[in-house]
């Protein structure tokens, strides 16, 4: 599979059709892979694709990371199904044009939840929970796909995958607040959750603005609550559920639970699943006159 992608990538880099191919290469430890920017045809030999490829590479396509994009006219990107959903969502939000990217897709068997759990193979014990409810293991929209792409029914509703969510929803409000307060105690606001996110594409994040200061910059609990609520609200109806925010968190705060909860709400209220269409507008930038308003007096 990866051989065919390597070959195609090499061909397109040689012909000059692509300036760069973003993919995965072997990392510095056997348990890890690392993003690689292939600019020369021979770089494509380093490409790998397996269960260790956790990164959501479309993060490099959004505006925040303008620097490596300098001089790229057409970018090739190797994507798992969930990554390609992120690209689709970026296009739906006008953050990217479809003809700026060339998508290499491949069937994905799931990825490891965290590199430190990699023990040579992917199995139930270490596979990320997001993969259990995945309907894009055969990716949605690709320019290159090794072999024949089978038809997949993706009409089903969004399924919450994190088992922890069920536990949290059952709690009382007070307990849930206490749970987050205790977890957020560890947060030191490194913003890894923001930086790995393909959808956090603001050039200057609201937390980095100090006049006015909407979110306290210091990492006391109040400021951490402010940040994670803001982040979650800004991703409502946009998050494609790659789970990188949780995976990247150095102190293992499962911030994607907020996103998963909101995806469920959006699915139920507006029948919208992010990352499946380049045309349908995300729910919060549009409206229906007969939207649900049971909560309004």
């Amino acid at each position, binding site marked *: 599979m990866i051989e065919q992608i390597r070959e195609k990538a090499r061909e397109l880099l040689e012909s000059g059709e692509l300036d760069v191919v973003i993919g995965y290469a072997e990392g510095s430890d056997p348990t890890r892979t690392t993003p690689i920017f292939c600019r020369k045809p021979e770089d494509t030999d380093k490409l790998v694709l397996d269960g260790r490829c956790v990164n959501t590479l479309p993060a490099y396509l959004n505006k925040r990371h303008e620097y490596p994009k300098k001089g790229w006219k057409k970018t090739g990107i190797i994507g798992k199904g969930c990554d390609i959903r992120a690209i689709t969502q970026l296009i739906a939000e006008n953050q990217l044009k479809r003809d700026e990217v060339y998508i290499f897709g491949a069937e994905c068997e799931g990825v490891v939840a965290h590199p430190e759990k990699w023990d040579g193979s992917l199995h139930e014990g270490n596979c990320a929970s997001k993969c259990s409810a995945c309907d894009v293991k055969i990716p949605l929209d690709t320019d290159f796909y090794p072999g024949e792409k089978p038809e997949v029914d993706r009409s089903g509703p969004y399924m919450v995958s994190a088992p922890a969510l069920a536990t949290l929803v059952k709690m009382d409000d007070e307990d849930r607040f206490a749970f987050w307060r205790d977890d957020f105690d560890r947060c030191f606001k490194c913003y890894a959750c923001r930086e790995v996110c393909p959808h956090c594409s603001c050039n200057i994040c609201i937390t980095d603005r100090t006049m006015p200061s909407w979110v306290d910059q210091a990492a006391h609990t109040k400021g951490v609550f402010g940040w994670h609520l803001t982040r979650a609200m800004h991703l409502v109806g946009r998050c494609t559920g790659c789970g990188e925010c949780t995976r990247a968190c150095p102190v293992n705060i499962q911030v994607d639970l907020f996103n998963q909860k909101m995806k469920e709400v959006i699915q139920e209220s507006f029948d919208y699943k992010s990352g499946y269409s380049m045309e349908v507008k995300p729910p919060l930038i549009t*409206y229906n006159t007969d939207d649900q308003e049971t909560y309004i007096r």
Partner: protein
Amino acid sequence: MSKGIVRHDFEPKIMGFVCKWCTYSGADLAGTSRMDYSPHVRMVRLPCSGRIDPQFVIKAFEQGADGVIISGCHPGDCHYNEGNYYARRRNLAFRNLMEFNGIDIKRLEFSWISAAEAIKFTQIIDKFTNQVRDLGPNEGYRALLDPYASRLVKSSEESAA
């Protein structure tokens, strides 16, 4: 309309973010009509309910509000045609988010009040005030309000101005 003065152990702090075309005018009407309503709401006038960023509500809770009320024009009445439709979707999501965060959702009120509905305005304010008063202080956030109070020592009467 006059109500007797009742003392309570706890008087809530309530923030109101309202649209200037409808709810704020409704409040004006209530005032000029000498209607009686709870004085707990600190109202902020905004051009449209669509302008009310959830960030305002988060900030209000962070600054010690026990309840937040958001109000705007009825659907179809928006001065800007569609602002309240966006607000409706956004707040539906936001309420769910706050609930998942562990805020009692009864502390967050959303209502449509037109410029003519002074009575509805007073009723909603009174009802919401009572509701929040029954819930008591927003303990979760109040504990976070002043993160460094325990670190301070003496107050030196130094002045600089």
